[in-house]
């Protein structure tokens, strides 16, 4: 089978799996709910409590799992392709943390009340600043250590400023909500949140997917890619903008959920023949699957109040990070 055909098959399978996970996500919750009956009520316009729970609580949660997971997965694959570094991931290198800072500044100081799109825009601005700073720091030195150190710096600065902003915010609840922004959660979100982020996210995905051929060429080196006619400056700008739009929007409604963009591209890379361009779409779909599985699983665990989503993805993802670190240190174990 050709590489393109196999990629298509993989994408179709992952897409179907993601939809299946989203459907399963709507079946799991805290209230005893006959989902089939509720869906029937919803479709026939009967305004029952079950229909209300399904439409206003379970569906937005599943949709956000899908959208946030896709954004984190595709952004992870794009950053790894651009920086040619398997550890580049929005969470590890501080893009998610900076997005949380941007969203926190907008949310707690009232700008989000002025116009609703301010919330994702705050997240996008934070993510763009961090991604830009990271690329500037890593330019000319894409070694793992330099990148990770730059990421640690961006991450800890963003985290410190987020704590500061929450401490200074007028709301008495703000300081307690740092857990949400640092660990992420999809609990009790609404369709309004879905509507808020879906357009900027989709724009980000398109920008990232458009860069696929250039990313493939980049594996041969910057000079070769340039000689093949790819404008590297435009490629970088497009990838930073796409990552910022996707990750910034995601973090502004879910908090910073780590490791999705690390684990998923790592697992799928062998299946797409090490082509970073082909990795984009499947990583997005795989990210959606992982996020939905984690978010459904945490509701099945007998822990109340429920675990934060980022706690679950960290438990799943941290061993991967350690494994990758050991492998990059020891190329031939």
């Amino acid at each position: 089978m050709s590489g393109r055909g196999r990629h298509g098959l993989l994408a179709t399978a992952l897409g179907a799996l993601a939809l299946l996970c989203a459907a399963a996500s709507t079946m799991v919750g805290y209230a005893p709910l006959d989902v089939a009956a509720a869906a029937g009520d919803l479709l026939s316009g009967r305004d029952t409590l079950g229909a209300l729970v399904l439409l206003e609580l379970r569906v937005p949660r599943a949709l956000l799992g899908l959208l946030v997971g896709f954004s984190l997965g595709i952004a992870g694959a794009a950053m790894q392709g651009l920086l040619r570094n398997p550890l580049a991931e929005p969470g590890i290198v501080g893009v998610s943390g900076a997005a949380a800072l941007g969203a926190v500044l907008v949310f707690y100081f009232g700008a989000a009340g002025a116009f609703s799109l301010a919330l994702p825009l705050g997240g996008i601005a934070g993510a763009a600043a961090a991604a830009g700073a990271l690329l500037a720091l890593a330019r000319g030195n894409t070694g793992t250590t330099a990148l990770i150190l730059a990421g640690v710096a961006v991450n800890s600065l963003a985290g410190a400023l987020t704590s500061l902003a929450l401490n200074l915010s007028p709301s008495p609840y703000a300081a307690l909500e740092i857990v949400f922004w640092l660990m992420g959660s999809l609990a009790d979100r609404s369709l309004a949140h879905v509507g808020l982020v879906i357009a900027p996210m989709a724009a980000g995905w398109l920008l990232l997917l458009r860069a696929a051929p250039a990313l493939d060429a980049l594996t041969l080196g910057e000079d070769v890619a340039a000689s093949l006619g790819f404008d590297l400056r435009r490629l970088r700008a497009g990838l930073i903008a796409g990552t910022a739009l996707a990750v910034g929007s995601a973090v502004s409604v879910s908090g910073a959920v780590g490791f999705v963009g690390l684990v998923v591209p790592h697992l799928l890379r062998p299946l797409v023949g090490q082509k970073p361009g082909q990795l984009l779409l499947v990583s997005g779909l795989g990210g959606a699957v992982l996020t939905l599985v984690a978010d459904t699983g945490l509701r099945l665990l007998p822990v109340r109040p429920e675990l934060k989503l980022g706690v679950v993805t960290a438990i799943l993802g941290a061993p991967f990070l350690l494994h990758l670190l050991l492998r990059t240190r020891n190329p031939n174990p």
Partner: protein
Amino acid sequence: MARRLLGVVLAGLVLAGLVPTGPALASSRTAAAGPRRIVSLNLCADELLVRLADREQIASVTWLARDPRASTVAAAAADLPVNHGMTEEIAAARPDLVLVGRHTTRTPVALLRRLGITVVELDLPRSLDDVRAQIRAVAAAVGHPARGEAAVAALDRHLAAVAAPAPAPDPGPVPGARALVLRPAGYTVGPGSLVDTILERAGLRNVAAELGIDGYGQVPLETVVMAGAEVLVVDGEAESPSLATEILGHPVIGRLAGRVRLVPVPVRLWACGGPQVADAVRILAAAARQDSAP
């Protein structure tokens, strides 16, 4: 111009200095028996202190006492000195009595005890009897037991005024409307709390008991929707934006409004034990009657 302004300010200072001297002297004589420099480290203690002690007896209250959303004595506390529960502030005030909450500011409390300063701990009241006992305890500690009795009598008078009309139309133990409290961050309040007592007193049945909530607990919005409450008691006032308060504005709550009555009760009315709990009972009893009317 500047000179005239200065003159006005000076005259004001003189007046401000002169006017209070008379009453201050008089009241300091009446308070001679009680403590003279009282510091409170807890909002609930602030409220009782401001209501029961002479202003001259109060060395400082917490900064929360001035917040009109949280405190029922914000206006009276506006010109009282405030503390932030820091050990240094308290020591500098050289208090002879410190009022604290049982669960807050533990570090300064241990130190104050070591220094031999009298510390009175207020527990979270769980019933109206606890409230009465607490009012009396604080009144006795500040040297005005008669004011405590008067405050308890006023509370009972207000409670009786609320409760009186209820038993007449429907005799016998008719189960009241099903109610659920929804506080920011999805917190609700179950049995074993003052809030539960107040709901019961107002003729409402607390659904949180069915949800297995004991004391305070968090519930997911799904559970709130499906709990089948007829009355949803929410926070009375808009706050600065936070995820915690965003829950109360979730569209699903708005869409519940058709089948569930939203009753706003300012949290300051029932967060602490004091005469204000009668107001909470009054608001909720009105809601309960309205609910059983049609």
